[in-house]
């Protein structure tokens, strides 16, 4: 699995409340993604395009179990690479079919706006501007399979395990 995209850089300890603030969760579901990073990077959600890639620092996505990864996916983010990724956020990336990779050294390896190529067979990141390649941290096939399927729901749907979504609570 390979992704090409433009990078957006974020710092250390980016938390879930910045991606999906509590009060925003009470708004209609479809409107929530546009508030991603509203507090720390106003206007970002309008600039991001389908296929863009987030490059984060340490402990990216720390905080809550809320569907913050889903907001980023809705905005077009296919892939998140960070120095380290919070355990619960990494699970949620898999859950919603967002490819996520821990890659120590990535903050210095990428400058904002660099076009990058992420290869999930080898778990590597290539900076197209410099031509250099950085090795990320491997994770098991079992998790990669969930990401490839587009998350847990498509897998459960294929097995006929799910009811139709309830329109009253959509």
């Amino acid at each position, binding site marked *: 699995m390979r992704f090409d995209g433009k990078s957006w850089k974020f710092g250390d300890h980016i*938390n879930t409340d910045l991606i999906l*603030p509590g009060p925003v969760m009470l708004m209609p579901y479809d409107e929530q993604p546009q508030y991603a990073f509203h507090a720390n990077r106003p206007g970002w959600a309008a600039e991001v395009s389908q296929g863009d890639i987030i490059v984060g620092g340490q*402990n990216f996505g720390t905080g809550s*179990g809320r569907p913050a990864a889903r907001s980023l996916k809705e905005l077009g983010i296919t892939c998140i690479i960070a120095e380290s990724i919070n355990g*619960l956020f990494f699970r949620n990336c898999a859950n919603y079919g967002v490819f996520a990779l821990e890659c120590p050294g990535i903050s210095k390896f990428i400058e904002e706006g660099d076009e990058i190529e992420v290869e999930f067979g080898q778990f590597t990141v290539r900076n197209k501007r410099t031509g250099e390649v950085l090795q990320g941290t491997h994770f098991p096939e079992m998790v990669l399979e969930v990401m490839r399927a587009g998350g847990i*729901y498509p897998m459960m749907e294929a097995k*006929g395990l799910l*009811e139709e979504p309830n329109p*009253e*609570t959509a």
Partner: protein
Amino acid sequence: MGMTMVEKILARSAGLENVSPGDVITVDVGTAVVIDQNFMHNRMREPKQVFDPDKIVIMLDHIAPADSPMRASMHKAARRFADKHGITRFHDVNNGLGICHQLVADFGYALPGTLLACVDSHTCSAGAFNCAARGIGHPEMSQVCATGQTWFPVCETIRYTLTGTLAPAMNGKDIILHIGNTYGEHAMHNVEFVGEGVSGMSMNARRTLATMCAEISVEFAVFEADDRCIAHIRERNPDAEFEAQFADPDAVYAAERTVDLGAIEPLVAYPGTIVANARPVKDADQDHIDQAFIGSCANGTLDDFEIAAKVVKGRKIARGTRFIVTPGSQAIFLEAMRRGYVQTLMEAGAVVTNSTCGACCGYSNGILAPGEKCVTASTRNFKGRMGSPEAEIFLASPATVAATAIRGTLTDPREFL
């Protein structure tokens, strides 16, 4: 090679003799805790069948009672889900209402040596009962309800031996602020708490500390089960079968640290995070505090009501400061009334609310305006957590919050006790 407490619980849940850091394992979930948030915007798609209705509990907590037709439908969907699948451990909007982690503790749902999952990140709270408990995502909870299984990475463990006794004004909150200040974040690590310092802590105090481990990004936080822990569960869930797990003598740790509880002083975390961001309350800036809040899964216990009432008894809150207190459950509310704590707090000027997650997650009962400063004995002080991103959230113990409500600026509670 021996295993740590967390490794032993994970191995048992996976049906394996042994697990080691680096393994990724499929586990059977002992208790699945479903909450109102699962039904909001269909975050948790409903499975056609559940794996075992007796291993699922349902609680309405984040927005309860409902505050809008949308949230009323969310509660309605939860009730229908419980009825349809025969889930009897259902906490509706009645005298069984409460914040999920508080109820898990108070009803003895968290069992030693077992695994518990819920979509809330403070699920590690149940670690106080020697239960490996963790927040997972909403789609995973759908999968857990359908199959009873999920996956976990086995991470390295850091062992904390607690010694000494916490002074009366201090709380599990001060311990976590001390640990966060001294050792920083614990991402991709488990922690376990042992030692005579643990024996001296009430189950409420242990649970505050376990709950707050989410804020230093711990995977699993587990306490050793002692007589007090076992008695707590037996009293509330007499028929439950469980087997507490202890670390092997030759277990391997990423680090072993000792914390002297007697040396800890009241701390306050400055806005943003509790990681390396706290200072002694006595040295804190003396700006006006607009709101003081006590509540949440971390500090809505009877212990917290008791200490807050003690601090404010016979005093009045400062002009221009709001003091909001939210119990962890309606049962705690009732008992705090019986003991006179609610009356004392209200006479001082506090607003005591119904039990819900409320102000802690910025949903209700104390939302902050731009430019306001709040001191909170809840779980989290991220930017924008309790309302406006331009508000500032300081995080401290219930005693510190109560003393601050009286003075109107950050105040060391020891002078009031």
